[in-house]
């Protein structure tokens, strides 16, 4: 494998650091959900507008997308030997992740604007 930018120590470290953040956020979020169900629409929006939650959720989205990119990239590199198919798949993954990221960020920003 000689595609530039697809190997090395940097993604390996980012994978681990993002994993720790994602893990902590998931535990925090799950404990919020489990202790406050059933949520109302107002409570849910209010929770999201609390700065700690907006910022930690925004960071979570970035960490998740980055973590996911590295993981799926590794899976594609492992199982898809054909360079053309590989690049097409990786491009699709980038589009899906980037689009989802924009969508989630839009939702967060609109909550603050309301």
């Amino acid at each position, binding site marked *: 494998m000689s595609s530039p930018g697809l190997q090395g120590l940097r993604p390996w470290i980012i994978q681990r650091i993002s994993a720790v953040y994602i893990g902590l956020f998931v535990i925090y979020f799950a404990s919020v959900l489990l202790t406050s169900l059933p949520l109302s629409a107002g409570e849910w929006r209010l929770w999201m507008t609390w700065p700690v939650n907006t910022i930690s959720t925004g960071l979570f989205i970035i960490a998740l997308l980055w973590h996911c990119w590295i*993981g799926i990239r590794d899976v594609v590199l492992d199982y898809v030997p054909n360079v053309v198919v590989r690049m097409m798949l990786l491009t699709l993954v980038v589009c899906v992740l980037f689009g989802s990221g924009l969508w989630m960020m839009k939702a967060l920003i*609109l909550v603050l604007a309301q």
Partner: protein
Amino acid sequence: MAATDSRPFFLNLIKIRLPVQGMVSIFHRVTGVLMFIAIPFMAWLLDMSLQGEQGFSHTIEILSAPFSLFVIAIMTWSLVHHLLAGIRYLFIDFELGLSKQQSRYSAWLVFIIEFILLVLLFWVVCL
């Protein structure tokens, strides 16, 4: 390759018996891919749930459908397994539990804690 070599001649996925460490590993991959597929749907649901009363109740409605409950169950398992297996890999990154015996124990530990957590979650949410 020697004629006496008893390793599998071809890779028949059904005939391969993975050791428990291998089970943790392949499920780590599978659950990662499953959660990747879920990301666009999560974006859709997050956005909708934050759009007033109507969007929120529509989100709840979608999440309560029988098929959604099935997907939520798969995703909960995926998250729990991926998280626990990930914690195990972090220990291994720090060169803790590298021996064959220790790695076998920690792999079993992942499945045991996973099972307990899922039972607890089911109990808390459904009862």
